[in-house]
């Protein structure tokens, strides 16, 4: 057993081994979910995009520490505040031998914004993409946008000619009945090709010898199998039938570490788990307090915050596999996150606050919670319920599978929740995503911040968010973000809980880079004899 080198600040754990690598190797790996349709614009989800990231590439990519690097674009410049120029890499070929050029970028931009695309947010709605020459493309915006390219590492460029030949000019959608090959076949520019794909059963990747860049590891072939059952996945790792599994359930991490041939590789994930309040309605439908909404009072929200013993949740529920957080964003994604500190755990102060707000006798409320979405989600909710019970807030816990849970609490269910637990990863890896989705004011139908389930609303925060969106100067921008987060912290817009840990299990023979966004990328893996 070996403890992994884990650098929190960089958000990346690099396993170092002295064993000499084999010339070329086959990696066998298993994930809890399955790789479904292969169209890179069908599903905006980490795992799928991560696997397709071995095959396709964007104009930019992210390195081991999530830093933005040039990929299919060699360089870019902002020639006017609203005009970005990208210089494309020359001599790059798609897997079928077609040349990569500006037409493919223009085509991919149209395709990613088309009706069935789940990745429309990768580009602003009113962007104009102009081909300057074969290897230069301009993006013309209606207003300055400093984070235009932040999500482009997962906006994969597709081949225009191939898509046209294979009926794949439109994004594969659920109702699709046409013969759209993009669902079953890939044609990217990346380090690996997909050799065979049986959805839900097995997918085989092969190294692409003609890749324009160098594969740093030695993986020639990858056999991916989904194994949904936790115990079977761990058993497959322990018995040496697979080299890598994701995730290892928290209760099995110690066992994987004790085994001489396997290691658990853990690190903080980007997703933040938090609690939210209905502070929009005039009355909580599930509460015994009638005619008023206690959650509209910041003191009540703060009382619940201070009643929660986050360390106990970390030790008992998460078995140490979480990082308590004071913000709705991971400290890896916001430089000044360290300046915020959680409101202290203090049940007496909490009771005092409830008393001041006029709810000294407490009240009842229903809490909505998923039970199969996040690590130990239901157990966290149970812990919270018993903690706030001590200050007199009696929680009726409604824990459901994610399909029912999201059906109830999201816009489609009419935001039917008074108190809820949710997890969020900002896909742009930037704070603006939080303001746009979680904390901005919204109306009944979700206009505004659609995932602000409780409808918390502060005009000052919205105003600051608007400035953050268009401020090109990084320091000024960070200052604006700081101000907005300070208001949310003081007003207790939400109760941030923690960033859960990602936990991979791997053979000791395997060296790899574990990135905090949980993407599994083969090009950095080395398997020794």
């Amino acid at each position, binding site marked *: 057993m070996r403890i992994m080198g884990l650098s929190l600040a960089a958000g990346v754990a690099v396993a170092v081994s002295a064993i000499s690598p084999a010339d070329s190797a086959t990696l066998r790996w298993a994930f809890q979910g399955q790789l479904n349709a292969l169209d890179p614009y069908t599903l905006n989800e980490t795992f799928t995009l991560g696997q397709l990231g071995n095959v396709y590439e964007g104009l930019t990519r992210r390195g081991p520490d999530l830093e933005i690097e040039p990929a299919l674009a060699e360089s870019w410049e902002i020639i006017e505040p609203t005009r970005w120029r990208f210089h494309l890499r020359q001599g790059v070929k798609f897997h079928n031998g077609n040349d990569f050029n500006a037409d493919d970028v223009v085509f991919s931009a149209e395709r990613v914004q088309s009706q069935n695309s789940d990745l429309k947010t990768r580009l602003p709605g009113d962007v104009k993409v102009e081909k300057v020459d074969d290897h230069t493309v301009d993006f013309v915006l209606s207003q300055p946008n400093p984070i235009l390219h932040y999500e482009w590492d997962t906006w994969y460029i597709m081949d225009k000619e191939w898509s046209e030949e294979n009926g794949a000019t439109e994004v594969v959608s659920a109702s699709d009945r046409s013969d759209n090959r993009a669902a079953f076949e890939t044609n990217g520019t990346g380090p690996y090709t997909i050799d065979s794909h049986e959805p839900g059963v097995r997918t085989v990747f092969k190294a692409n010898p003609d890749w324009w860049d160098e594969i740093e590891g030695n993986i020639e072939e990858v056999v991916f*199998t989904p194994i949904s059952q936790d115990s*079977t996945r761990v058993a497959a790792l322990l018995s040496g039938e697979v080299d890598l599994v994701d995730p290892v359930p928290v209760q099995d991490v110690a066992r994987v570490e004790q085994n001489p041939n396997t290691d658990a590789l853990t690190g903080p994930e980007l997703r933040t788990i938090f609690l939210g309040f209905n502070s929009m309605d005039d009355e909580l439908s599930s509460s015994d307090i009638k005619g008023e909404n206690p959650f509209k009072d910041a003191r009540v929200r703060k009382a619940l915050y201070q009643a929660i013993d986050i360390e106990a949740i970390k030790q008992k529920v998460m078995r140490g596999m979480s990082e308590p957080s004071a913000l709705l964003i991971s400290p890896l994604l916001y430089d000044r996150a360290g300046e915020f500190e959680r409101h202290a755990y203090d049940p007496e102060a909490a009771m005092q606050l409830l008393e001041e707000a006029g709810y000294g006798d407490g009240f009842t409320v229903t809490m909505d919670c998923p039970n199969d979405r996040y690590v130990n989600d239901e157990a966290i909710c149970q812990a919270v319920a018993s903690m706030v019970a001590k200050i007199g807030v009696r929680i009726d816990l409604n824990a459901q599978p994610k399909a029912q849970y999201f059906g109830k609490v999201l816009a489609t269910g009419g935001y039917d929740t008074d108190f809820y637990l949710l997890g969020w990863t900002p*896909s742009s890896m930037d704070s603006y*995503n939080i303001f746009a989705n979680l904390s901005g004011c919204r109306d009944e139908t979700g206009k505004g911040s659609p995932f602000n389930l409780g409808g918390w609303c502060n005009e000052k925060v919205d105003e600051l968010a608007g400035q953050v969106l268009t401020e090109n100067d990084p320091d000024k921008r960070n200052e604006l973000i700081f101000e907005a987060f300070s208001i949310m912290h003081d007003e207790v817009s939400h109760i941030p809980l923690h960033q859960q840990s990602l936990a991979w299990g791997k053979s000791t023979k395997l060296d790899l880079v574990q990135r905090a966004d949980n993407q599994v990328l083969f090009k950095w893996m080395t398997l020794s004899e």
Partner: protein
Amino acid sequence: MAGYILRRLVQSIVVMLAVGLIAFMMFRYIGDPVNQMVGVDTTPEQRAALRERLGLNDPMIVQYARYMWNAAQFKFGTSYQFKEPVAQLIASRLPATLELSIVSALFALLVGVPMGVYTGINRNSWLSKVFMTVSLVGISLPTFLIGILLIFVFSVHLHLLPSFGRGQVVDLGFWRTGLLTGSGLKALIMPAITLGLFQMTLIMRLVRSEMLEVLRTDYIKFARARGLSRRAINFSHALKNTLIPVITITGLQLGSIIAFAIITETVFQWPGMGLLFLQAVQNVDIPIMAAYLLLIAFLFVLINLVVDILYTVVDPRVRVDGGASA
């Protein structure tokens, strides 16, 4: 006979229409498929548009009628998750489930019947007591626990058998089989035992009690009096007469083996229909769920029919009655 079969087929259509209707009524309560199909930061407008495109806004009865009409033409729609035609998906997963089920059923019969006969004849031998104890385990332990125990012992500790998957498969064009390769056969052992253990103990106990019953009857006593060999009495007279209930139960159990392979397939990540169905439930993939339930209903109807026909072969008395009473 032909009229009888035709009547049973008409009945089966009614059964399947009912299964379809019940299934559609239940689908309303398993959650919103759209939430499973899109990423979490998909806007409400995009979600609404998708619902409309999938026809999820129509009344349940309209969705049901549309589905059954298409199903009658063997069109089962496109899976929400895989974006592949459901008929094609099920066809590609069917061989795995059928191979597993049939091997389990054979295991249950070939081990269960001899054990039942043995314990029926030698009630008090120590081996019978061992068999009876083992059968208690088979009946009382849940399938997933047996599967995990087997994995723990034979994969993790002894490194003898693979813990998941089907091993190497051979593509025969219309059928992908794991029965022709060493790794495929090795991969089959633990899932087949896990799936067949319950049926094996059931058959064993059934054969045992039937044997005890039959051995007490007069014609066995007379056969003994006539001085027939023990072997002839036990196997050609006694065993044959115990087979009617055994065939019924085995037939019906084959249906349940296929239908309840879900758990075994999940534990061993066996790429069959059961696993497909369970993943469909988690992802609210209605086209797959509906097609699977219809298929299972059809299988049960079919198996019942075959069992009824087999009766007439084994037991002439049923034939005399004209079979209609079966």
